[in-house]
């Protein structure tokens, strides 16, 4: 295989894996912070129990998110060195600020939070978890500002063949960023919420620690409702922005080969043939695409063929159509998962409000457990659509993905690293799920296993080095 394809695969695998943990961290830490706030305000021990229980899951998740994040930062230089040379001036700045502002904050205050229960006053301890949340939130701000630049480059000029920043505030007021950030952050809060409601539903079905999990469900389901609606609305604005700035991505996500009639219908499903550049078996809803694109039931949407011709005029000869099937279907998977989550959150909120949770129908509770998978599916599908739909560009209009790859790294090296990282991540994923399930099964009142020691156990053998220090 060629290095470009391998680099693409590696980037996709490691980023999707990393992004399982990131949104869950952001979402979970907000819920933990809310629970601890309730504990400090109301003084009820049960909220502390909740904060500690969900905090444990958060920490396991956070650890994996952190270590897989290191790889993300290294990867640009390792696999995409030409990309890094071209954009470092603009793209590197938010990354550096992310480390300086967000990573320091979250890593220091999470240490204080974990180890500080007995050493800090209640309020200072509470402040620590909010600062961790602030850290994760700010991290999202800067990395999304960087990603938005790739979608819609602003605030720079080309100098000596490199993109050089000339307007820092343009990066932060980038229209793409303003729609992408709320969409992603609501998605993250939704992820935390659905993991908590799902686990709580499981425990409520089993009638275990009902008091803890009923309260957890109630708090999380409200966040779930607000954030899933937030995702939908911000997604709508993002789609409209997309029509203006990356019409090709929009057309590909709709499987629209030729410019539509007016008003434009929305294709629910279709069988797409990228070679013949046509679809068959389409099911359409009249006018809906116009609404999605322009918030009104009129206006046609340009097709990929026309756009390709336009792009060729602007950027020179080439094929500017992204992988249509992937873009089309990832968009639909995202919307389906998102829509389902809105319905579940609505009904869940209704049950919680009417205090009917404990008598809720088992099918609903089971569905909530299954729904733990939905935000992960939606997050991944959303990013696949965003990144694949931008192809062949890595920086839209300025650099193709092909041109960004490291010229001095061989296919063999990338293959090796891809296999190594995939193996390591597989182990990580399995261990993490295993630890999660154990913690959940043990419940919030389980005797802390970590308090037990094997005495005297010495994994390194009798003579494992310390004989040198025997007096």
């Amino acid at each position, binding site marked *: 295989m060629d290095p470009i394809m391998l680099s693409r695969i590696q980037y996709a695998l490691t980023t999707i894996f990393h992004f399982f943990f990131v949104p869950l961290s952001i979402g979970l830490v907000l819920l933990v912070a809310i629970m601890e706030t309730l504990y400090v305000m109301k003084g009820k021990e049960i909220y502390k129990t909740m904060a500690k229980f969900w905090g444990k899951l958060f*920490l*396991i998740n956070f*650890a994996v998110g*952190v*270590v897989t994040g*290191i*790889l993300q*930062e*290294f990867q*640009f*230089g*390792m696999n995409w*060195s030409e990309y*890094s*040379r*071209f954009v*470092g*001036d603009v*793209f*590197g*700045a938010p990354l*550096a600020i992310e*480390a*300086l*502002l967000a*990573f*320091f904050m979250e*890593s*220091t205050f999470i*240490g204080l939070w*974990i180890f*500080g229960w007995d050493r800090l006053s209640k309020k200072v301890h509470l402040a620590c978890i909010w600062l961790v949340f602030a850290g994760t939130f700010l991290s999202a701000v800067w990395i999304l500002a960087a990603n938005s630049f790739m979608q819609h480059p602003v605030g720079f000029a080309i*100098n000596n063949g490199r993109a050089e920043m000339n307007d*820092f505030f343009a990066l932060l007021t980038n229209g793409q960023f303003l729609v992408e950030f709320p969409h992603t952050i609501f998605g993250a809060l939704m992820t935390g919420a659905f993991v908590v409601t799902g686990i709580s539903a499981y425990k409520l079905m089993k009638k275990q620690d009902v008091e803890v999990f009923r309260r957890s469900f109630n708090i999380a389901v409200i966040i779930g409702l607000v954030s899933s609606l937030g995702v939908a609305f911000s997604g709508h604005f993002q789609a409209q922005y997309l029509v203006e700035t990356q019409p090709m991505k929009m057309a590909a996500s709709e499987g629209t080969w030729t410019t539509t009639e007016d008003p434009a219908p929305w294709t629910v499903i279709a069988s797409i043939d990228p070679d013949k550049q046509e679809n068959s078996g389409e099911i359409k809803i009249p006018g809906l695409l116009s609404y999605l694109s322009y918030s009104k039931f009129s206006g046609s949407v340009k097709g990929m063929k026309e756009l390709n011709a336009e792009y060729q005029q602007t950027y020179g000869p080439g094929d500017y159509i992204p992988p249509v099937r992937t873009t089309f279907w990832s968009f639909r998977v995202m919307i389906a998962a998102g829509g389902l989550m809105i319905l579940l959150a609505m009904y869940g909120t209704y049950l919680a409000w009417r205090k009917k949770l404990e008598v809720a129908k088992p099918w609903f509770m089971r569905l909530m457990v299954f729904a733990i998978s939905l935000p992960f599916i939606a997050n991944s599908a959303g990013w696949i659509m965003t990144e694949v739909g931008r192809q062949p560009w890595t920086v839209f209009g300025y650099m193709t993905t092909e041109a960004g790859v*490291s*010229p*001095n790294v061989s296919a063999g*090296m990338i293959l090796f*690293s891809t296999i190594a*990282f995939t193996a*390591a991540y597989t182990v990580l994923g399995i261990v993490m799920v295993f*630890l999660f399930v*154990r*913690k959940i099964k043990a419940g919030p009142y389980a005797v802390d*296993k*970590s*308090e037990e*020691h*094997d*005495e*005297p*156990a*010495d*994994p*390194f053998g009798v003579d*494992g*080095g*310390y004989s*040198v*220090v025997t007096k």
Partner: protein
Amino acid sequence: MGGIPLLLSELWFVLIAVLFIGFFFLEGFDFGVGMSTGLIAKTDRERRTLINSIGPFWDGNEVWLLTAGGAMFAAFPHWYATLFSGFYLPLVVVLLLLIGRGVAFEFRSKMKQQRWRRTWDIIIVVASALLPFLFGVVFATLMKGLPIDENMQMHAGFLDIVNPYTVVGGLSVTLLCLVHGLLFVSLRTVGELRERALQLAKKVMMPLVAVLAIYALLTYLMTDVFTVRGWALWIMALLGAAALALAAYFIRQQREGWAFGMTGAVIAIAFASVFIGLFPRVMVSSINSAFDLTVYNAASGPYSLKVMTIVACTLLPFVLGYQIWSYYIFRKRLNEQHHLEY
């Protein structure tokens, strides 16, 4: 290019040097503590005490590396691109070790089974020893020079990276981190653990002095940094030797606080010397000095350096403030009664 951008790119070189020095000073002791779990702990409780002694800090310490990497990306995109793509395979190993070590701290005490803990313990020890070694190797190659062509592309073979000079460099950093970490242990524990840490630190001092001396000598013979920088590096070498001697003295006196400060000073002086020796180059080409990457030809534009400078000057005091505060909160020694989180 005017005067100010040149100054700013030089400032960013200094900042990146400071970030790396901070990283090796801080993560240096938690590498050492990681190694010490395989050397001075006799029981599971003791091993856990060691891990918990760096529990609140190691993650924050590692961010110094991430920030150095991010700053390099932003301020010197060519340096970042050439270095990270050029050291592809060593960095794959570094990443795997960083990943394994990070989750090992978090995971190891989550289960009671001996096999489980043993596995993570081995990862902690191996990663904590190999990481400083690899960093030492990479920094040694930076001084020695690497095959970098006219397009700033580095094509290093195995022997360009692994050779006697770089191996001695790697060993120096590993042993330095080990002593530094043992002294940190002696600062944060009581009783036998503290004594064992001091004892072992005393024993490791001899080989440490030996490899550092060999490394300094080889640097004099095999690189141009002493000729390029002349007296500045000689002063650094003398300062380093003095700090090392003082460290040995304070270890014998059982004054671990001062000794820890001195090993920290050795680390700071050693890495500062690397950057002083390199300046104004950031990567030395062994093919032709015309192909060297310098703070001038590898830097970002003046605008972005200015923005970054403002941001860094605003944020860094806060970062230092709360990191120091967190060390203050956890200043007490860990004893048998302490609740352990990791």
